[in-house]
């Protein structure tokens, strides 16, 4: 009973982690660095949606108990996160002549800047979208599942986005080109791949998904300047667990980490060790499957 409840909770929470981890993983493999500003990109998405939602309002109608205005805000959140990421790439990362660790350090600086700007604009305090939280869906409660329509909306939207990405990768050359570029950028150019475009697409997709993750995180929980950053460690764990650079691995890793995080109550340790357990399990899994659970690491 309790297990089922935690399991479903895990599924919802995972949806958000998955959205974050895909982007991180993509950027990790294409731009070749661990982007510490990724969490704050999520925050940007969330706050852009907040502003938009404030401006456009509910717009009437409701899907999954969410007004249509929210979906407009979601799209804006995705777009702004993507734009900010692309601008950052152009202004900060591209002109840099440093290795991957250098980029990592730079991204810490970028994260600070994002966060500081958000805090300047919105203050340090937390806030929420002006959407009334819902009660759990009645007919599921007897089964021990306590989810709201919003939770369902989060999971479904995440599923839609992820499937969209899957279709994109499967039915276009983009995925293959991305892998080729991650493998050998020089040869990719020699083969005629427009690597700067691929890179741009990577940022757009990665940051867009992160933006969506941020918006959902805001809906699921609340908005605060540190919201994305505080989730970053878990997202990293997911990416590594899935096998760095593998999109599908990142999905799987995100799912697992979210689950583990939410399933701690049924484990024989205090809930205060939730994150520690996620990491211990991650290391244990890796000792058995050295290339991540997807085994397809580039």
């Amino acid at each position, binding site marked *: 009973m309790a297990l089922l409840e935690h399991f479903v909770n895990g599924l919802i929470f995972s949806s958000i982690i998955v959205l974050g981890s895909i982007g991180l993983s993509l950027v990790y493999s294409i731009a070749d660095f661990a982007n510490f500003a990724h969490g704050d990109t999520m925050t940007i998405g969330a706050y852009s949606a907040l502003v938009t939602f404030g401006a456009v309002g509910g717009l009437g109608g409701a899907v999954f108990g969410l007004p249509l205005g929210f979906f407009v805000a979601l799209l804006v959140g995705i777009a702004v996160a993507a734009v900010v990421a692309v601008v950052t790439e152009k202004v900060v990362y591209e002109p840099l002549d440093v290795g991957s660790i250098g980029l990592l*350090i730079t991204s*810490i*600086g970028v994260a600070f800047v994002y966060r500081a700007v958000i805090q300047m604009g919105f203050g*340090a305090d937390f806030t929420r979208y002006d959407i009334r939280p819902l009660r759990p869906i009645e007919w599921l409660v007897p089964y021990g599942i306590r989810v709201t329509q919003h939770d369902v909306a989060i999971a479904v939207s995440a599923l839609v986005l992820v499937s969209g990405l899957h279709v994109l990768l499967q039915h276009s050359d983009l995925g293959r080109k991305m892998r080729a570029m991650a493998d050998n950028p020089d040869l990719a150019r020699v083969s005629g791949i427009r690597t700067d475009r691929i890179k741009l697409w990577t940022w757009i997709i990665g940051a867009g998904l992160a933006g969506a993750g941020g918006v959902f995180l805001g809906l699921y929980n609340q908005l605060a300047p540190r919201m994305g950053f505080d989730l970053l460690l878990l997202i990293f764990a997911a990416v590594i667990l899935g096998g760095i650079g593998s999109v599908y691995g990142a999905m799987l890793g995100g799912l697992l980490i979210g689950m583990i995080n939410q399933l701690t109550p049924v484990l024989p340790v*205090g809930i205060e060790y939730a994150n520690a357990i996620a*990491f211990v399990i991650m290391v244990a899994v890796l000792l058995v499957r050295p290339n991540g659970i997807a085994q397809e690491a580039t």
Partner: protein
Amino acid sequence: MGALTDPTEYWADLTRPEQGVLAFVVGFAALLLFGLLSGGLAPTYFLYLVGLAGMYSLLSFGLNSQWGFSGLINFSVAAFFGIGAYGTALMSASTSPIAGGYSPLVGLVVALVVAGLLAVLIGVPTLRLRADYLAIASLGLAEVVRLVVLNERQWTNGSAGVRGIPSFFEGWPLLDTFPSAMPGLEVALPGARIVLETPFWNALLNVALVVTFVSVTYAVLKRAHRSPWGRVLRTIRSDEDLARALGKNTYSFKMQSFVLGSLIMALAGVFYAHLNLFVSPGDLDPVTTFYVWVAVILGGSGSNRGALFGGFVIVAIREGTRFLNELELMFELGGYLVHLQVPFDPAPLRLLIIGVLIIALMRVRPEGILPPQRELIWPDAVDGAPSRPDSGVRDAKGGGDGE
């Protein structure tokens, strides 16, 4: 030869960045001196900053001998730092729930032993595997150590922290009572009147301690880095298979490098505990790991001088921005100070400035401020070889002088 006997030639021998850094260091030192003399910079605070910089330098040395030398990605700097701090605190503090009351020297030894053991424990399963393993395991380790310290109250006092830590020199003849025994010393300066009292002498002792730690570490690392031992590590960093093919036991080398680095980090923790006299789980916050990485990369990966300098840069960035806080919104206009109203919350400004500084530094000096010397061969062996003159003199100064 040396900087003193033949300054022009010495200057000409330096690379551009070295000249830049030297000029910067000299200029900065002059500025500090001016600040001290004019009373603008209080000596006790200055010594505190030097102590802090020394601590960051030690941490950077530790990470440099892992990442910079062998390419080991360690994201648990804060954990080893914390183990050093807690190790000595739990041995020597009056409120320690397990031991307590021992001499800080015992604390030092215990802290190092624990850190070393933990490093081996992490290293055994991960160092045989692909490089990112350590990164992952250490990321997890940092969190586990932090949570254990926070939650296992019976051993660590939990979130209450450990207080009542003696100063490092407690129980030593002479040094023990030196700070309180020193009479207040009044220094009259053109700008101000400064009274040097117990806190100042305490701070002075702390600086002496950190300078000792830093110099010894620097000397050891400098020798190791230019040796065949260091060369094997560099080979592993670049291509581990090649090192294996040439018959090097890479696992053992990586382990040595990892343990060495961890010990140095713990040493920094030991210093910190006796500097602050209070440790709490907050000291294991991962942000320390961030800053140390920034210090190493900004200084120049693989360069000991860079790590030393990077430690100072970090303190300049973190603590220097406190002063910006006071200056930022003011400028002088015809003798009047005009207070600018800003339409946003200025509190995160410091965070913003730190972020921008990091980005700017990476842009200006992508390979770090003082990248490692281009060739690292045991000093005596290259005599007469057509490389850049050996820079032993410069390096020998080591210590806490910021070069």
